């Protein structure tokens, strides 16, 4: 009983976190107390309000260029949520198309799909993402496209296995007997019956995409400055972390809490919808 209540609590907590960050992201321009790009070189590295010497009007302090940390954090939510959702849409389209085709047709089509998945899994993810962003040039669009083109493997694996389970069920046979086209069957019969598995995969991939963007930006090959990506904020602040550790703690906690929230939500949805994690 206790465990069940904990699980429900976790799901709600996750949903609340994701919703909160989404609201921050959407309404960022209305919520920020300061311009996140406005520098104030006289007021650099002001500590946050829970430390001594805090300045009024900067509850989370200011960064090494005197920019308001809370405002940058709120704009950073935009970047993380944008990267997360855009990557899931791109990778979902690629992965689900491949997986459903392979699972539905089987045979040679399936062999080809499995081969593409194996190739993708063999490529060192972070390294290739770094190389692509470095060669093409770093921008938000490049990061989204790179991650979207790389993170579809789990979508493909899960939609392939679940399609295989569904394709021989009665309602698919019935649709076939009724003379429905194969595309119609895949779209109207198969997809609605595997979508609950894919929702769970989407949460996992969204969390992964957000973490990867942060890591790329941290290494200087993600979202370009002065955009306030949380990973970039940690990277820019790390020269000061020995004296003022809060400069890396604040964006790091934000990143950790958001990803934890997405994963909690995903775990809860998996239990609720009876989906599998990796099939």
């Amino acid at each position, binding site marked *: 009983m*206790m*465990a069940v209540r*904990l*699980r429900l609590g976790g799901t709600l907590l996750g949903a609340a976190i994701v919703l909160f960050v989404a609201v921050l992201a959407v309404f960022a321009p209305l919520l920020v107390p300061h311009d996140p790009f406005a520098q104030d070189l006289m007021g650099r590295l002001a500590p946050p309000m829970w430390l001594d010497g805090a300045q009024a009007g900067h509850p989370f302090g200011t960064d090494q260029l005197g920019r308001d940390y809370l405002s940058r954090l709120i704009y950073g939510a935009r970047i993380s949520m944008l990267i997360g959702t855009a990557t899931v849409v791109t990778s979902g389209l690629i992965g689900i198309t491949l997986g459903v085709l392979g699972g539905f047709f089987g045979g040679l089509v399936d062999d080809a799909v499995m*081969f593409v998945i*194996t*190739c993708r*899994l*063999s*490529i*060192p*993810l*972070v*390294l*290739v993402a*770094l*190389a*692509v962003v*470095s*060669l*093409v040039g770093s921008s938000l669009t490049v990061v989204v496209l790179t991650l979207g083109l790389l993170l579809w493997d789990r979508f493909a694996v899960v939609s392939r296995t679940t399609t295989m389970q569904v394709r021989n069920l009665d309602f698919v046979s019935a649709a076939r007997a009724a003379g429905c086209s194969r595309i119609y069957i895949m779209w109207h019969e198969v997809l609605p019956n595997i979508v609950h598995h894919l929702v769970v995969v989407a949460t996992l991939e969204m*969390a992964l995409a957000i*973490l990867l963007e*942060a*890591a790329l930006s*941290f*290494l*200087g*090959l993600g979202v370009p400055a002065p955009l306030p990506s949380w*990973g970039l904020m*940690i990277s820019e602040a*790390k020269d000061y*972390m*020995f004296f003022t*550790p809060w400069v*890396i*703690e604040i964006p*790091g906690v934000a*990143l*950790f809490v958001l*990803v*934890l929230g997405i*994963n*909690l939500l995903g*775990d809860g949805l998996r239990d609720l919808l009876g989906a599998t*994690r990796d099939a």
Partner: protein
Amino acid sequence: MLTYLLRRFVLALLVIFTVLTISFALTRLSGDIAVAIAGPAASAEDVAVIRKTYGFDRPLPVQFVEWVRSAASGDLGRSYLYREPVSELIRDRLPVTLKLGFAALMVALLVAIPLGIVAAMREGSLVDRGVMLVALVGQAMPGFWLALLLIIQFGLRLQWLPIAGAEDWTGFVLPAIVLAFSAIPALMRLTRSGMIDALSSDYVRTARAKGLSRASIVMKHALRNAAMPVVAVSAVQLGALLGGSVVIEAVFALHGVGFLAWESISKNDFPVVQAVVLFLAVIYIALTLIADLFNAVLDPRLRAA
């Protein structure tokens, strides 16, 4: 069995060929590679000399065939930056990455297996939920951020461990712990679900009926069966750890293969980039092949597949 082996082997070769193609295409993404190498200050003559020296004036298919042929014979090209064969660069840096990867895998297994067993023995309890929470936290932790926090705490405040470099084994402690975090959740979940299956099986019920001790049942009967998939996945995880160590090597200034790749990426040293991508992919492919074989040997049902 032999057909299965052969099929897997041919598949692995095809995958390697595809990765060869991808790593070649990757370095040609930037458009004119010679301009990128020469740098912004170079004159048109300099660029022309570079183009001629490295053979970029030849048609792309010719360059590609050349790359595949030399890679197949173990020659991965020369670094523009170090003026050394890339294979030697990788060989010099490999021990650091291998040590880091193995140490991280050991840490991950030492944490994941005991926690997975405890969670499975008390399935559905608070202990179980607590262990699953550890998995969630591990999954949500940004590695590079954890690395910085540990550097501040153990390197700076307590001064127990060095904050960068790998003069001796102490330099590997923090990086291995951070890297292990990425492998712990998956290994822990796998141990837990494997143990839950094993503990509810007939042979465990028989062992219990025979009056064997709980320790003997868990360690001897259940764990042996649950361990098989964990060992197989560990091989795959090791490949992922080696490929994923680039961020950690960059944070801790560990001069391994990942650091080499990161350095080369930021300095447009393309032969090194494409060689490291290929190299890590081949290691991963080899490790998955080993994991598959391991599974096939232990589980006859898979051989038919």
